[in-house]
């Protein structure tokens, strides 16, 4: 197999703070006068080893190879450098150091509908956007009908896109991009557009591109479902560095187990709490079924919610009751987990520890959720209660084990179907 993309210690540094992203002329004149002093200052700072405090590496020493025909996923948390990597590979911005070579015609899709002009009609935007993405005029002419059909906007091609619904707009924009025929396609988080049916169509299009047409695809996504369906290999980035490169499933589980640096301080220092304070929560987080903390949980996985607490000296809490409420980002309460409801008899607490609540096959859809956590004794006597004590992240996973990409609105529910036919 030949190499399609080769990255060799790719680095990208950005400045933060210190200097505004763009200067006024006055500032730069002032800077040019102070430059000699700054040079000496820099030397001093370098000698002290404090240089670079207002710079940060969006990408540092990233090296990997992608073989022609591979579909490679790029995952990592926000700010890990995924988008920066794609921007470097497309040539939008230059690396600070390092080298990459790309063998073949590249097209990138960092955003759906780049260059769409609201005043122009759908037809005109297809031509404009196609040209911006690097298509030749005759290619666009040839594919025009396919694009419009794919986008399901046949009746509106001559309407200005500002009158389109947002769904139509996104569909048309994606359709143009989907008909690009580069040898290498770089895609950033654009599969999550439109309604469920259209998302499926997009996914099918991408996998068709890779399977039938042998395209090399680099796909950045937070949608682990899409990554695991489409990609045969995955790259894991963390704080600008490459920390994993291998088979997709391994990389996804590695990503899930990366523990967030949590500061236990914040929860312990919270004062907006109710209860007599004999017990205080210090942390609340997701664990996998073995009790290892995880940054995010996958829908359908067996997980545990862990509530770390400490107790005051010489305190004895008999038959404590733990409980948490789970709310979505809109504040709707989705469910309550309570040891009173389950009837679990918990042993008497005399010192700090962790209360675990295990949830088999997490039924939450992807998103962020907030926990209100609560401990009570003697029925309803609150010892500690904190609202929005923790934010937990759920990533889309395969709840039913059928690789369905159907997007569920709120929650999954375990169920089974059968048919009994009339005799």
């Amino acid at each position, binding site marked *: 197999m030949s190499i399609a993309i080769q990255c060799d210690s790719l680095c990208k540094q950005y400045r933060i703070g210190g200097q505004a992203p763009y200067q006024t002329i006055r500032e730069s004149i002032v800077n040019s006068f102070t430059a000699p002093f700054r040079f000496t200052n820099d030397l001093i700072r370098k000698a002290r080893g404090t240089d670079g405090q207002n710079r940060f590496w969006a990408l540092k020493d990233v090296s990997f190879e992608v073989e022609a025909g591979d579909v490679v996923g790029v995952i990592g948390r926000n700010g890990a450098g995924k988008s920066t990597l794609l921007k470097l590979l497309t040539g939008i911005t230059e690396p600070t150091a390092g080298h*990459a070579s790309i063998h073949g015609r590249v097209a990138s899709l960092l955003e759906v509908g780049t260059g769409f002009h609201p005043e122009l009609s759908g037809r005109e935007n297809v031509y404009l956007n196609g040209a911006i993405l690097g298509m030749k005029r005759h290619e666009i002419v040839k594919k025009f009908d396919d694009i419009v059909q794919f986008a399901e906007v046949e009746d509106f091609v001559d309407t200005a896109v500002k009158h389109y619904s947002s769904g139509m707009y996104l569909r048309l924009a994606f359709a143009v991009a989907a008909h690009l025929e580069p040898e290498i396609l770089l895609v950033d988080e654009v599969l999550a557009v439109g309604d469920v049916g259209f998302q499926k169509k997009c996914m099918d299009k991408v996998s068709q591109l890779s399977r039938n047409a042998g395209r090399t695809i680099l796909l950045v996504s937070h949608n682990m479902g899409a990554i695991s369906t489409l990609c045969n290999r995955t790259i894991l980035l963390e704080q600008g560095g490459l920390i994993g490169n291998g088979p997709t499933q391994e990389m996804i589980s590695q990503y899930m187990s990366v523990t967030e640096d949590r500061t236990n301080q914040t929860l312990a220092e919270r004062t907006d709490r109710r209860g007599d304070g004999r017990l205080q929560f210090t942390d609340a987080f997701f664990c996998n079924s073995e009790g290892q903390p995880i940054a995010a949980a996958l829908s359908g996985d067996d997980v545990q919610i862990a509530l770390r607490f400490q107790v005051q000296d010489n305190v004895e809490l008999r038959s404590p009751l733990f409980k948490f409420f789970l709310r979505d980002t809109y504040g709707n309460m989705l469910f309550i987990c309570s040891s009173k409801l389950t009837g679990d008899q918990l042993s008497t607490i005399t010192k700090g520890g962790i209360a675990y609540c295990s949830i088999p096959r997490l039924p939450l859809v992807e998103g962020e959720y907030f926990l209100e956590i609560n401990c009570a004794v003697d029925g309803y006597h609150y010892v500690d209660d904190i609202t929005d004590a923790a934010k937990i992240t759920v990533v889309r996973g395969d709840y039913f084990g059928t690789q369905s990409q159907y997007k569920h609105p709120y929650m999954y529910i375990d169920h089974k179907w059968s048919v009994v036919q009339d005799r």
Partner: protein
Amino acid sequence: MSTFVRHIRPSKGWSTLKLRELWEYRELVLFLIWRDIKVRYKQTILGASWAIIQPFLTMVVFSLFFGKLGKMPSDNLPYPIFAYAALVPWTFFANGLAFSSQSMVASANLVKKVYFPRISIPISSVLSGAVDFGLAFSVLLGMMAYYGLAPTVHVLWLPLLLLLALTAALGVGLWMAALNVLYRDVRYIVPFLVQLWMFATPIVYPSNLLPKFWRPFYALNPMVGVIEGFRWALLGTETAPGMMILPSSLVAITMLVSGVIYFRRMERHFADVV
């Protein structure tokens, strides 16, 4: 698999002009011009007639104040046509300069999300003024008919004079477009610059008001050559602009070349700072 290989590495010093790449993207330049033209007068009542109204009304005001009240000499021509023949190329230049200097910032979203030769943005915004020029020019021909003035054979030079105006507009526009990405002061400088520049150009007055000795220096302003050339070619004014075209062209070409080089040098930072 094609043998096409692209290398991505930090560029050092003065980069190449990559004109070949620009040629490969010529269709995009055409599409951008076409977009600018289509969009410019959308959702306006008067539409493309704005291209005529602007220079025409300016001509009316100038004729009133400078021609009628100020008794400004006008190369023995009726003042309205004297002024309008200058305003048509001047409007093309001034709009081209204004559009191109704003173009990079206005296309920030494009620059941050897609790669293509960035220089196609200011180029297309200058060229998109050609349609407006055409409309205003047709009115000029109408006025010439009204005043009974036939164009001279020198009219054959007109395309070259227009090219000179284009070169000057693009040269300054490239500098301003690149500077505008880094320094937003440009937004305030350009309208001011255009205003001052207009008075440094023989639009409301003829250049023969200046002593003969100074005229070649005066013509270091490239628009001097363009405008004297327009009047000479169309209206047959006596000031044959030979000695003016030369310095004007040299300055315009210098500005264009330096503008392209500066733009190329700065463009690698555009996506990071715009």
